[in-house]
């Protein structure tokens, strides 16, 4: 299954992936209109320190601890992609407690959010991959 993989050596810490992620979630056509005046809460997040930077997003694990711990059954695995049914999620944060990579975070409306490989917003290549200017994020099959 194709996943979003990170090539840490090429990450410039420019944060464009975060903005493209937030843009993808709005379903708007123009980024300026979509994100003007908005405090973004992206599902892919950069960690940076001392010249090292990289983007962290849901690994869509084969044995997903978040899904196993979800008290409502809102987190499920569909065709390999871990998705959130935001209607069912009550914001208990058990998944945040479980995810070993810190890939799940609270969203504005109380439910949780995480990378869903853009399957609900755009089709094809996830937006963070498209927006990365330096090939630090790719969308490919790596035999996992």
């Amino acid at each position, binding site marked *: 299954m194709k996943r979003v993989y990170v090539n840490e*050596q*090429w*990450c*410039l*810490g*420019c*944060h*464009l992936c975060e*903005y*493209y992620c937030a*843009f993808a979630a709005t379903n708007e056509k*123009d*980024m*300026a209109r979509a*994100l*003007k005046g*908005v405090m973004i809460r992206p599902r892919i997040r950069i960690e940076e320190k001392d*010249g090292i930077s990289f983007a962290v997003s849901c690994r869509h694990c084969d044995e997903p601890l978040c899904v196993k711990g979800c008290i409502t059954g809102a987190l499920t695995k569909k065709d390999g992609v871990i998705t959130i049914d935001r209607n069912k999620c009550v914001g208990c944060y058990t998944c945040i407690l479980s995810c070993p990579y810190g890939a799940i975070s609270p969203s504005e409306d109380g439910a949780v959010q995480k990378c869903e490989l853009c399957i609900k917003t755009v089709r094809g290549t996830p937006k963070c991959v498209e*927006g990365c*200017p*330096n*090939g630090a994020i790719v969308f490919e099959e790596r035999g996992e």
Partner: protein
Amino acid sequence: MPIEYIYPDYEIVRDYDRCIVCRVCERQCANEAHEYLSDLNKMTADNAKCVNCHRCVSLCPTRALKIVKSDHTFKENANWTGKSIKEIYKQASTGGVLLSSMGNPENYPIYFDRILLNASQVTNPSIDPLREPMETRVYLGAKPDRIERDENGKLKNNLKPHIKLSMPVMFSAMSYGSLSYNAHESLARAAAELGILYNTGEGGLHEDLYKYGGNTIVQVASGRFGVHKKYLNSAAAIEIKMGQGAKPGIGGHLPGAKIVGDISKTRMIPEGTDAISPAPHHDIYSIEDLRQLVYSLKEATAYTKPVIVKIAAVHNVAAIASGIARSGADIIAIDGFRGGTGAAPTRIRDHVGIPIELALASVDKRLRDEGIRNNVSLVVGGSIRSSADVVKAVALGADAVYIGTAALIALGCHLCRSCHTGKCNWGIATQREDLVKRLNPNIGYKRLVNLMTAWQHEIKEMMGGMGINSIEALKGNRLMLRGVGLNEKELEILGIKHAGE
């Protein structure tokens, strides 16, 4: 600074309706021109720091930025331009030599733009490059005078070592030290994929790039940086750098601050020492001395590699070339006055040397007149900007061309001409790790391959249009060229007729 003599040349214009305060401009500007004001949640910029490299413009996801020339002006004066005035202010402040990067930007005639190509019609039909074979392959090296046979009548292989190129373009010498490692890796990988060569320049060859040796020209410059036997033997050809188009007559200087880590190791000089390439090779004071070096290099490589001698295009370039052609060199590379550089004194770069078109034409004619044109191949550089320039250069007599600036532009260079600051925002002319990262060779090499592939198609189109199907038939074919807007003398030196004749 009590009196601000120099107003910023460029202004950063931001469309605040489109700015989403993503801060990528701030994060990506090595000159720290952009700033985020947290109390106002707004971006702002300091125009004085902008070098017009377009990094911020290119990365802004909403196209909210553009750079414009400041309309702050001096009174109109055709003689004392704003530029001349500002240069005096700079020198009055610093007492220093003005330094510039990249090629001569001044308004001298560009002969390529005054030369037109022929096309076939009616009598000599053009060739369709999509349907007929077109040969862009060239071989550079000394051509033998005659065919030799052995006692049985079979052809003897009396060919000297040659360079085989899939098209008549190579990447010219840009040193590791002035360029980043990632730029070199991109050039090496592209050359390997395309079947052409790239040139190490005078910084030596990084050990990780030895695997591309078959597509590498190693340079022996006056400072002899990084020159050792393995270096010479790893390459496809060796180039002795006698001069450079951007700064004829003087040497080079890479400050000690840049000689660190791999740069120091590759150049074989201690960290922190200035890398000074002297103006002359201190062991070459005559053409005989040059011949001696050429043959030393051939001995060291068992006569398996062609030797190139690179000179700058200066007034008596034809006589110099004639001497080199008799010295045992296999290829002469001529670098015109528009050639690029990492850093050179502005006055030398802008006022010394001659255009490559004129140099090429006069060298080609001189060698033919003396009957020694086949002793060497001619490679020219110094602002080859497009496939049309390539075709014109070959028609004027070149076997192949070198491209430097064009290759860097393919890698992302925006010709902001700030290389000498070491803060290249595109990761090309810098050694700062955080900036070098920005040039991902996996992306860079592909762009170079794309550029050359596109030029190769265009060359084929132009040749086909002329009714020619190989570079061999285009070489020195001055009848395919006509001048426009050139005076008699220029036409005479170029050896071409005027359009309409």
